[in-house]
Structure formats: structure tokens, C-alpha cells
């Protein structure tokens, strides 16, 4: 696998492991953007990441940050900081990491799937959507220029069992937030407390153009469910999505709006694709062969 030369992609922070995955004093190898890297852990929260060149020469040390249950690094010069997600600092939140799940597709297909409400009734039937309530009501998208993020607001969808804590169906309010080409999150209203939102993130480690690891840290308001139950719920949802994600063709993301045809419900995906196109990212993007 060749290392990408796309500086737009290289300049982003991406996760490369979850906290606790590397034992104290231990070491772990992984790959980002086709580049082999090695992570060593010398102390509780002290990680060192460096490249592992193919020719056996000594590697280059990379920047490291630990947040949101993940170890982040970058191969380039990061143009944006890691996102601020205040919910993770609230003391009564259940913060869990969920580990990582491998998915063979481009990172952008993962982000779009996470942004998408229209599939709930079909892929997460009787959990996140009901077969007889498939409508996606109009919502707004915006490009927040100050932070260079894509947001989708005023999203609502009827859900039979929106979370581990829900006992009945509800109209769930969602806000979606794309913080980078490789990270996305949602806020959804909490069953027991209308003033608060669960925060669920997906940070993607692109190992190659169509090979990803997805990390799903979340900060949940739920006093009753066990951590194992919270993780089980998220993972079972994600495994339903993975079947879809690995069977979209092409696996790379087409940015040409005539190649894949959106409808109103895809407003967030449309905004995301425009944003990707404007930043001229090439890694993981489908270029139609000239006829």
C-alpha cells in the first residue's frame, strides 16, 4: 500500500488507537494513509508515535494528542485543532470508547452513513426507525466558516427505540456535526431529560483509501444502563451499517453529483461532498475514468 501524497488528507488529525489499547511499556503497529506507524506507551498517558519506513531506516516522530478515548496523530501539519466537544467534560456523563471496528470502504462513506437518517427504517428497523414512518422532514445544513465545520440542524426522526434507555418510541431531535473529513458526531435528545443531548462521535482512522477503523467515543446521559450495554447497543447498530458500507459501489466516494443522485433527505451529504470538493481532497475520492 503506497503512502498517500495528498497533503489535504495528510494535514488532518486522525485516530490511530484507543486509550488502553497499548499496554504500559508496550508497543503497537498500525497504518494511517498507507503509512506504517508505531505507537509506544511509556506512562499512563504518555504515548510516542513514529513512522516505520519500509526500508528499515529510522522513523520520524509524529505529534500526539490523547482525547475522546483515542490517540490522535497526524502525518502532516495539522491545519485545524481537534474539535471541542464540551459534553465529554461534564462530570455526570458516561464516557465510553467502544473500541474500534474495521470497515472496508472509504472514510467518507462512513461519515455519510452516520449523517443519514433515511436509512434508519430499513437498516435499523424497529430500533432507530419504523417501517411505516420513513419520512425525513426538512432540516437545515450550514457550513460554519469560523470553525470550518459542516452542521445539520433541526433534524427529527421517529424512532421506536432511540437508545438503550428508551422504553417507548419518540420523535428524536438530532444535530449533526462534521468536524473534519474523517470525523463526525451527533447530538440527540435524551429520553429522560429534554434539556440535554447524548453526544456520539465517529473518528475514522483511514488505513488506506478503502480500509478504515472506526472509533466511536460517546458521552451519554444514562444512569441505569451498564457500560457494556451502552457499547453493545452502539456496536450492534454499527454492525448493521457495516454490511451496507462494504457493499456500496464504488467504495471510493464520487463527488460528481450526476454519478450518484441525491434527494432532499441527503442535504447533509450534499453539503459534505461540496465541502470535500472545495478543499480539493483526493485521497479516497472516486475519479471517473475518461470514456
Amino acid at each position: 500500500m503506497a503512502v498517500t501524497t495528498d497533503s489535504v488528507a495528510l494535514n488532518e488529525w486522525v485516530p490511530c488507537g484507543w486509550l488502553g489499547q497499548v499496554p504500559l511499556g508496550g508497543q503497537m503497529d498500525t497504518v494511517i494513509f498507507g503509512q506504517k506507524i508505531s505507537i509506544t506507551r511509556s506512562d499512563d498517558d504518555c504515548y510516542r508515535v513514529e513512522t516505520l519506513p519500509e526500508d528499515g531506516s529510522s522513523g520520524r516522530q509524529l505529534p500526539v494528542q490523547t482525547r475522546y478515548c483515542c490517540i490522535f496523530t497526524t502525518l502532516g501539519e495539522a491545519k485545524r485543532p481537534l474539535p471541542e466537544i464540551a459534553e465529554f467534560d461534564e462530570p455526570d456523563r458516561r464516557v465510553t470508547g467502544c473500541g474500534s471496528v474495521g470497515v472496508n470502504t472509504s472514510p467518507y462513506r462512513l461519515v455519510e452513513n452516520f449523517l443519514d437518517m433515511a436509512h434508519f427504517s430499513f437498516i435499523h428497523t424497529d430500533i432507530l426507525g419504523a417501517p411505516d414512518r420513513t419520512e425525513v422532514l426538512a432540516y437545515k445544513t450550514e457550513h460554519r466558516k469560523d470553525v470550518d465545520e459542516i452542521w445539520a440542524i433541526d433534524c427529527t426522526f421517529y424512532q421506536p427505540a432511540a437508545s438503550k434507555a428508551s422504553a417507548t418510541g419518540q420523535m428524536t431531535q438530532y444535530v449533526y456535526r462534521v468536524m473534519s473529513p474523517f470525523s463526525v458526531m451527533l447530538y440527540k435528545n435524551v429520553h429522560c431529560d429534554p434539556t440535554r443531548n447524548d453526544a456520539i462521535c465517529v473518528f475514522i482512522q483511514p488505513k488506506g483509501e478503502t480500509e478504515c477503523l472506526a472509533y466511536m467515543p460517546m458521552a451519554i446521559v444514562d444512569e441505569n444502563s451498564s457500560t457494556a450495554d451502552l457499547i453493545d447497543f452502539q456496536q450492534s447498530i454499527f454492525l448493521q451499517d457495516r454490511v451496507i458500507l462494504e457493499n456500496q459501489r464504488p467504495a471510493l466516494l464520487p463527488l460528481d453529483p450526476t454519478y450518484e443522485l441525491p434527494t432532499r433527505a441527503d442535504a447533509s451529504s450534499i453539503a459534505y461532498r461540496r465541502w470535500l470538493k472545495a478543499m480539493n481532497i483526493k485521497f479516497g475520492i472516486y475519479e471517473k475514468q475518461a470514456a
Partner: protein
Amino acid sequence: MSLEQDRWTGVGLDRQVQAASSNPVILDGQALALWRGEDGPVRVWEDRCPHRGMRLSFGFVRGDTLRCIYHGWAYRTDGQCVEIPAHPDLAPPKTICANSYPAESRYGIVWTNLSGAGSAALPDFGADEGWEPVRSIYVDRPASVVREALHSFDFGDVSEVRMNGGSAALVRVRSGLEILFAVQPVSDGKTALHAVAKGQGVAGRRADLARRLERLRATIERA
């Protein structure tokens, strides 16, 4: 896809495509969905939903529409999208149309032509009646090798082997049996063969023929 050769290739036995089902097939590296409504003929479509690229061979059939599994968009037999569940009151624009290829059933085999507006004729081995499906086999060898092997394989007492432009071969056995093979190049090193037969006592010889086909596959892969 207009770069595809203008020729008809068999991509499956008609009887194998069950009513109300959608099935994946690969022809020349192109992923196709073969699907049939609750009744009616087999359709051959690109295995890609025009919405967000989900494979339509994962779809489900209701009446004579094929629905994509991802967001439930429904497509009529001519490819036109007729329902978008996210917007129940919206009439889908005419531009949303699944990419379909010509499909014809002849001799119990489903044939398609990836060049689309092709003018090539369907393989012609006489009347359509009397052909019985035998089975399909999948060989880990390129189509050229498989075609060659059809010439020399021992199907009994062969009197004649007739090729039809590389995509079909008719093997005549002296006992009065005819075996027709459709040759489907799957990818560079993989080929599917769809066999049908006709002639005296064909029904009683199906099991024997299926065994011979299995031997054919083993022989080609051993060589």
C-alpha cells in the same frame, strides 16, 4: 460501459433466478444484478443503486418493483425510480433511473449485452423449445482456456462442436443429445459455464450430465 463489446453473453440459467429475487453476477468484471419480479422475465441491471451506490443484488422485490435495501428506493422494471420513502409525497424525478442492460431468455439461458444499444444477434441454435437446464459451473480459468477445453472434452461420443462467436458452444453427441454451453467471462481468471441440453431422454440424463460437467471443471483446473 459503451466500451463493451457488442455481443450477447449468457449470465445464468433462467430457472435459477427465482421469482421475487435479486442475484449478483459478474460479467467481464462488471457487477450485475439479475432480478425477477413476482412474475415476468429476468432483468439485468448494473449492480449499483443510482442513489448512493448500494448493490441492487441486495435489494428486495415487491410485486414488480426492485427496492434497494439501503433507503428503500423502488425501481420499476424499466429502471425508473417510482418511490423514495424518505419523501412519500414526492414523485421521483425522471432522471432517477437504474442502469439496465438488454436481457433475453433463450434456450433456458439469460443473455445480456453490455454494449447496451447493441445490434449483434442473439446466438442462434434453432428453435427455443425442448431445452432443459443442466447446471452452471464456475471455473478458475480464463474464458479462452475454457472454450478450448470444450472442443476436446469427452462428453460421450461427440460428433460436432460448434462455437458461436466465443460466447456459446453447441456440442452434439451421436446418441442424439445436444448440449449448449454459454461461456461467461467473469474476470481475468474466472469463467462461468451455463449448460442446457436437449434431445432423447434428456430428463433421465441430467444427473449424468451434471457429473460430466463437474469432471470438466476439474479437468480444466488441473491442466
